[in-house]
């Protein structure tokens, strides 16, 4: 039969620790919401979380919740509810699925964490448009619903080199957030607390970067699909000791794998770079496909996007401004191409996969000819698969599998 047996996934031991960390995060928020013990800030995933933590807020990330909706394949149940109130099916499916879930008063948190019945309501919403305009629209809807303030940083887009002008403008906006946030939190801003938080964030970033860099080893001890799960602490807990501790543990496990010669993909013979958003509802199927093809997706722009090596506790505002403007998604194509070329070299990549996410044009880099340019410049094959981060109605699995299998046949000659 042509139905080959499916090789088994190799689960990282750290996964159980990751589950504990995520559970603690959500239970802490839930308890704070019940008791009113802490103010809760909702923050965009690359927003000023460190500033919020330094002011005593517990921080909740709607994008993380939206990714959960995608991964649990519930997103398409909720998107129509947001469409019905005027949020187009063409816009960010994180936004539409998350708002839809709120309208329908449902959350996957209640199934994953017994006792939690709702997402923790916000006292303030804080965004940074460095990712896209959708985060602002998304947060403004919640601001109207919960009748709480929505504050934010308006970032630059299409930035080639990050200049002192960019940094100064963002730094000023970050500092302007302090007075209203002080008032909401009831806590006086303390620069030393911010420095401590930034130090923890920097440590988290460096460790997460080292975790991802283990994939440069051939064979790689981890895949992009592992990365999308294990990046959780870098998103929701950066600026805390628990995230730092987690990545020390994970890094040690991956180094042990390398020493023991354990590959994430047995007989790895092809190494791929993933550009663009994950397809959250198909992570398992795609991971299984690549495992069967003896192909390791070793690196991605997405997982790398939570490495903020420019953070500097000695210069909190300017370094935050720089770190959050250096972000890949805010950058011009020339800069993005230089970045991907470096990754291709560092990770010894055989081919680049572009995920063109229908509802996320800001994070779909196949729309302006980049795959063709990189193919010409690097001489390695590129492929585009059409799908979406959360809306699985926009993804044809049969077509994608054929495309990916043909791509690997092309790479392997």
């Amino acid at each position, binding site marked *: 039969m042509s139905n080959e047996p499916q090789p088994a996934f190799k689960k990282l031991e750290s996964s159980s620790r990751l589950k504990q960390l995520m559970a603690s995060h959500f239970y802490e928020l839930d308890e704070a919401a019940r008791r009113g013990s802490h103010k809760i800030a909702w923050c965009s995933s690359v927003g000023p979380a460190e500033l919020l933590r330094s002011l005593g807020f517990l921080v909740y990330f709607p994008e993380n919740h939206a990714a959960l909706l995608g991964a649990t394949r519930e997103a398409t149940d909720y998107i129509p509810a947001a469409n019905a109130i005027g949020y187009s099916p063409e816009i960010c499916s994180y936004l539409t699925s998350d708002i839809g879930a709120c309208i329908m008063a449902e959350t996957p948190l209640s199934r994953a964490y017994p006792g939690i019945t709702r997402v923790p309501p916000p006292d303030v919403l804080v965004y940074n448009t460095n990712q896209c305009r959708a985060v602002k629209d998304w947060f403004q809807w919640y601001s109207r619903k919960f009748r709480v303030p929505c504050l934010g940083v308006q970032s630059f887009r299409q930035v080639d080199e990050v200049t002192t002008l960019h940094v100064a403008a963002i730094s000023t906006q970050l500092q302007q957030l302090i007075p209203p946030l002080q008032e909401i939190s009831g806590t006086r801003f303390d620069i030393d607390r911010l420095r401590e938080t930034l130090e923890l964030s920097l440590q988290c970033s460096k460790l997460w970067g080292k975790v991802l860099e283990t994939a440069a080893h051939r064979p790689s001890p981890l895949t992009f699909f592992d990365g999308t799960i294990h990046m959780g602490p870098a998103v929701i807990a950066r600026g805390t000791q628990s995230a730092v501790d987690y990545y020390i543990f994970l890094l040690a496990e991956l180094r042990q794998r390398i020493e023991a010669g354990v590959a994430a993909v047995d007989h790895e013979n092809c190494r791929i770079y993933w550009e663009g958003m994950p397809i959250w509802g198909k992570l398992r199927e795609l991971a299984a496909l690549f495992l069967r093809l003896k192909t390791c997706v070793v690196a991605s722009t997405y997982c790398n996007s939570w490495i903020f090596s420019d953070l500097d506790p000695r210069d909190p505002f300017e370094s935050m401004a720089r770190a959050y403007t250096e972000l890949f998604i805010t950058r011009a194509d020339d800069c993005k191409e230089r970045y991907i070329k470096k990754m291709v070299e560092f990770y010894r990549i055989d081919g680049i996969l572009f995920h063109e996410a229908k509802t996320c044009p800001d994070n779909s880099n196949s729309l302006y000819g980049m795959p063709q340019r990189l193919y010409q410049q690097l001489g390695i094959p590129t492929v585009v698969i059409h799908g979406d981060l959360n809306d699985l109605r926009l993804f*044809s699995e049969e*077509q994608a599998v*054929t*495309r990916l299998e*043909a791509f690997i*046949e*092309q790479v392997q*000659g």
Partner: protein
Amino acid sequence: MSELYLGIDLGASATKAVLLNSRRQIVARAAVVTGLDFTRVGQEVLAAVLRQAGADMGHIRCAVATGYGRKNVHFPCLTKTEISCHGRGAYHYFPEAITVVDIGGQDTKIIRIGPDGRLLDFQMNRKCAAGTGAFLEEMARRLDLSLSELEQLAGKSQKDVKLGSYCTVFTFTEILALSRRGIAVPDLVKAIFNAIVQRVAELGVLSGKIVATGGVVAYNPTVADLLANRIGVAPLIPPEPQLIGALGAALFAFEEAKHV
């Protein structure tokens, strides 16, 4: 009887099979409508080619399955994508740098093959039936015409008409509007074929030697003619263009067995 090499292409619309002998000559071929059951149609088409060749399964040294149903066949075989198989099959007849345009039932592909036969790159249609055989079948159904009638009518067209819609459903809405404005049916039918060619041309750059394959070209020579008008040069058409994927699969089976 010498050893045989089987290629089977389980497409969304039709399932095709080719048997090669040890001199890489086609000794049997078959094509049937796929329907819903890939396993059953795989058995059917296999039985047909074995019957033609006067052979049994014991004669098959190696088999390769391709197409959407490639993982659903009931007998031991390797799998390859239809991208590689159409490229390999077309290169068999035109062993040089070529660009293969394959218009199948559900997929349209542009496949670039290097002078050494290597797959250089490929493009496929998005999650949309426009530009595929399914589009043509749907238009025929809505016009209450058979596919062969479409081909005959297109030959009688006197006037070029353009369809602007991307979507299959809205294309027919546009056809209804044009019909109400008095556009003749043959002109509408040619416009439908032209829409397919337009969708293909949007997929990627068509240059150099173009080889057209697939069921749509096999049954609708008009498409090849319109493609020639669009790109300024007549595409090369291999013998039995619908069987090229199955032929490519059979050639891969031969090469696998012979370690070529």
